[in-house]
């Protein structure tokens, strides 16, 4: 399984990358960590004419902003984010694949890949994520809730590059991630990111692996498990049927909120 031929650019600046992406149009793809894209190339599920490698762009910083948000640059590795001392990120990342994958995979890339079972997409949704997007035509911001359209589908347009993701970590909140997968590191059959407020009032949870995209539920802890399960639209496949996945959502939610 070898990828089909493609042209390759390795820009050193964001402007250079945007120019290459504009030129490539909808035949161009951004190559960041490549831990999802390269397997798709190997299977020839994706056959872009041009890969724009953003790994050498100066977008590798995690910053705490005055707004209270955390800003994660486009090429911050999952491994670096895991060690940055940001509690909810560390909690979610330990479920993501394996160390050699996290050494290369990026946080922003995982969110933009939009796998419905990805922990990081659900986390970004729960933490009011906003994606900073640039293109040759200008800049815009996209809320993660508007970004994730469906399985592997986002509202990003050809020529656009996500340069950073901002997350609101809600001081004082406790975040729990729970999931069930067939093997450690596999994509989850279903999972939840649960946020518990310091006052024990309205909780916030994001559910993943149980619909075409992760979804949010806010409410008091005792109502959330049933509510979240009712909102699930799980798929049936060889790994688990829809009923089992819906059941997992309720059980995982109860466990996350009780812990």
């Amino acid at each position: 399984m070898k990828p089909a031929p493609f042209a390759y650019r390795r820009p050193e600046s964001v402007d250079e990358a945007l120019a290459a992406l504009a030129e490539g149009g909808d035949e161009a793809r951004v190559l960041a960590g490549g831990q999802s894209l390269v397997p798709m190339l190997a299977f020839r599920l994706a056959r872009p004419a041009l890969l724009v490698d953003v790994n050498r762009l100066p977008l590798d910083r995690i910053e705490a902003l005055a707004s209270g948000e955390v800003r994660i640059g486009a090429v911050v590795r999952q491994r670096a984010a895991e060690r940055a001392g940001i509690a909810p990120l560390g909690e979610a990342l330990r479920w993501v694949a394996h160390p050699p994958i996290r050494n290369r995979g990026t946080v922003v890339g995982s969110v933009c890949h939009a796998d419905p079972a990805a922990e990081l997409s659900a986390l970004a949704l729960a933490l009011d994520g906003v994606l900073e997007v640039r293109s040759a035509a200008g800049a815009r911001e996209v809320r993660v809730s508007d970004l994730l359209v469906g399985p592997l589908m986002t509202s990003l347009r050809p020529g656009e590059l996500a340069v950073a993701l901002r997350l609101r970590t809600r001081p004082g909140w406790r975040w729990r991630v729970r999931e069930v997968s067939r093997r450690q590191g596999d994509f989850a059959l279903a999972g939840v990111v649960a946020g518990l407020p310091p006052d024990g009032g309205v909780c916030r949870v994001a559910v993943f692996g149980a619909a075409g995209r992760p979804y949010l539920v806010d409410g008091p802890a005792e109502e959330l498990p049933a509510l979240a399960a009712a909102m699930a639209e799980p798929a049936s496949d060889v790994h688990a049927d829809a009923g089992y996945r819906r059941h997992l959502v309720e059980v995982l939610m109860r466990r996350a909120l009780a812990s």
Partner: protein
Amino acid sequence: MIDVDVEVNGRRVRARVEPRLTLADFIRDRAHLTGTHLGCEHGVCGSCTVLLDGEAVRSCLLFAVQAEGSRVTTVEALAGDGALHPLQQAFHRHHALQCGYCTPGFLMALAELWERRNEVADEELIAAVDGQLCRCTGYAGILAAARDAFGTLEP
């Protein structure tokens, strides 16, 4: 075609390659180091794990052009001076390999941790091997070897 210049096990390897050539194929076919094995070629099995600038990576999920200017370490470097590396000796002692196909990947996933071996927690050893697929030896011997080499083995 693009020129690449990569340091592999301390040796400079230069080649003119297609962008789609994976780092794994570069290591095997251009650097002629066949200790790095290809199992699945889509990042699942871990057999092709090497160190890139000291970090364990799947070499099938990187293109050779991306390693331009980087330092790659493969399983051949472990026993550089002829004597087996302590990790390899531990694998030998604990029968941590049967067919051996996955072994280079296991060794390199663990080799990432070797520099700070005195402070590696047992959970890190488990995390290092749980991303590597072995289909014949079983993980008990592999984990015992890792724990022995890193000194976290229960007496």
